[in-house]
């Protein structure tokens, strides 16, 4: 757990807040006066994980910067559902340019602020996995390499949801999308493809890289806050389940994110200057089945009967993560 454990039984370290906690021990989200950077009236699907992740991250960033924040947004679901004329759901200074250029646009914003001698306002760039690992990877890598003072946040829902759930470079193996084989001997995405951006980011040896999910709010907020203590390029990769694209119940969005971490399929960790420093330990380990079963994009792995070969393969990936990222307490 990269967030310091609160010595308070009941729900101290895990729930959003609690009447018994000191304000500074509660998450930003428990504050009735939180920014609501992404406020009501947006057009995201019921139970949208990305809407949640964006508000969590930006509200935390707003607190960390004393509201001195500018956000740059890549094209994608988040942008489309938040700013259809004539209504905007953002309550921060916000700019949308294109699908593949958010990191570069953010570089421009940061450069302008530097040129104007504004050293207080901070810059966040955000996009989905398509904008991040595929079309915008060049721009992102350039921003990393220049070490521009930008926090880039990827809301990873593992496919192109805005256009109707097509495969992205972040689509996990065996997952079904509109453009991965949906029938036949081996439905779902191929094994051995895709990009794991956190490690690509680490390879740039930028000051700070972290992963998080919408299932562990305190951890997510702590990471945004920590990211803001660094200058230079920072990268935060947040898993945000998509009920539409994953074929899950709208009420299970957070639960699924939690299972992704507790199964080991989505390692949650922090890296500084390219080296991993901490990882969130698994509290209640579950088999990958628990995670997969809730999503119809994996339905083919369970009917007509459990596809042992594929599921075991996925389990091996989870186990490898657990070893590689030290996800279990000794």
């Amino acid at each position: 757990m990269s967030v310091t454990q609160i010595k308070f039984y009941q729900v101290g370290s895990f729930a959003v807040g609690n009447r018994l906690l000191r304000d500074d021990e509660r998450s930003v989200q428990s504050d009735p006066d939180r920014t609501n950077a992404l406020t009501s009236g947006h057009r995201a699907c019921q139970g949208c994980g990305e809407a949640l992740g964006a508000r969590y991250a930006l509200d935390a960033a707003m607190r960390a910067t004393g509201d001195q924040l500018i956000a740059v947004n890549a094209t994608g679901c988040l942008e489309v559902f938040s700013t259809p004329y004539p209504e905007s759901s953002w309550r921060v200074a916000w700019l949308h340019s294109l699908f593949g250029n958010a990191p570069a646009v953010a570089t421009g914003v940061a450069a302008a602020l530097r040129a104007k001698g504004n050293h207080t306002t901070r810059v966040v760039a955000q996009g989905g996995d398509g904008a991040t690992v595929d079309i915008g990877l060049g721009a992102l890598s350039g921003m990393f390499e220049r070490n521009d003072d930008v926090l880039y946040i990827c809301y990873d829902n593992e496919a192109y949801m805005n256009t109707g759930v097509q495969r992205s470079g972040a689509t996990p193996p065996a997952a079904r999308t509109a453009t991965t084989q949906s029938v036949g001997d081996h439905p779902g995405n191929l094994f051995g493809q895709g990009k794991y951006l956190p490690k690509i980011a680490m390879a740039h040896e930028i000051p700070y890289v972290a992963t998080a999910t919408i299932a562990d709010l305190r951890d997510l907020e702590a990471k945004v806050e920590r990211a803001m203590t660094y200058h230079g390029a920072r990268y935060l990769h947040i898993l945000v389940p998509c009920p539409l694209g994953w074929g899950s119940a709208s009420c299970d969005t957070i639960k699924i994110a939690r299972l992704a971490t507790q199964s080991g399929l989505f390692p949650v960790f922090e890296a500084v200057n390219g080296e991993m420093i901490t990882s969130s330990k698994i509290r209640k380990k579950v088999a990958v089945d628990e995670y997969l079963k809730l999503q119809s994009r994996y339905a083919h792995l369970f009917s007509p009967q459990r596809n042992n070969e594929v599921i075991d393969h996925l389990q091996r990936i989870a186990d490898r993560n657990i070893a590689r990222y030290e996800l279990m307490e000794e």
Partner: protein
Amino acid sequence: MLRQVEGSKAVADAVAACKPEVICAYPISPQTHIVEGLSKLVKDGTLQHCEFINVESEFAAMSVAIGASATGARTYTATASQGLLFMAEAIYNASGLGLPIVMTVANRAIGGPINIWNDHSDSMSQRDCGWLQLYAENNQEAADLHIQAYRIAEEMSIPVMVCMDGFILTHAYEQVDIPTTEEVSEFLPPFKPRQVLDPMDPVSIGAMVGPESFTEVKYLAHQRMIDSIAKIEEVADDFEKQFGRKTGGLLRSYRTEGAETIVLALGSVIGTLKDVVDELDLDGYSIGLVGLTSFRPFPFEAVRTALLGAKRVIILEKAFSTGTGGIVTQDVARAIEGLGLEDLTLIAGLGGRPITIASLRSYLVEAMDDQVERLTFLDLETETVTRELVKERALQ
């Protein structure tokens, strides 16, 4: 101060005098000397409070410019050829958001086949992107146009492309009078953005606009462009008042008074044409010249007026629309509708082919003698293409 300098250096100094706050660029010939010059000025402190960003592509260059401009910084970049195409998506976005970025296009051909030499096919390919396009006749004008461009861009909230012929101008050493920063400051007030990313007064820039409003957005962009016709003139006049020379503006006529034939051209070839026109005049031909500075917006009225009274207009173009012909020609034809003027198109200088006085002269003499096709490619190797055509058609 008047100096014998390379065109790129002159432009770099002129841009620096405008005190841009963010400069970003990706190297591509023949634009490189300009940004190298600027990078030197930033490094040696001549240009202060300016961020010079080395980006990883032209697409990023324009994107950085978008971010910087939206944050209220005066922003500059430069590119050419393939680079311009690579940034095309962002180019439309910059104008769509109304960001007053100024960009130099060191005009160069577009491949394939790859070709690094000069023509206008790069900037012409961005004809409809919503940017102003101003073409420089020589390095003095190239330098001046950048200073004027910032005034126009920032007052109209439209980005501006200053087009100068690659190598022919960028690499040519000639004398240029480069205004000092102080002089420019008198002419160009600090940038006051219409919209800006400000945490104190936040807005959401770049909304998704649907069918119910998209037409209106585009109509307004069009009108802004039309309004900038007057602005370009106004700024050129102000510039002349302060610096005592007439550069920029919509177009400039040369010996068109009573001329039967008028050549209309853009860019550095205008200089060569002036010599040709002088020669032909001595030989008793009635011929004049119109140098078009502003291609976008296209000054229909000004062009019409400039051509009034002539019998023939010959449009010399360094690019063309495959399968159609002249690009500028289409606009000129509209401008002269009803005047009963004959319009001929001369495609010249493609991919850096030298446009020689001799070739121009012989073409113009034939043209004035009605001996040319409506569309002519100057110095075309007829033998070669005829041979190749036969081969090709055999295969079709």
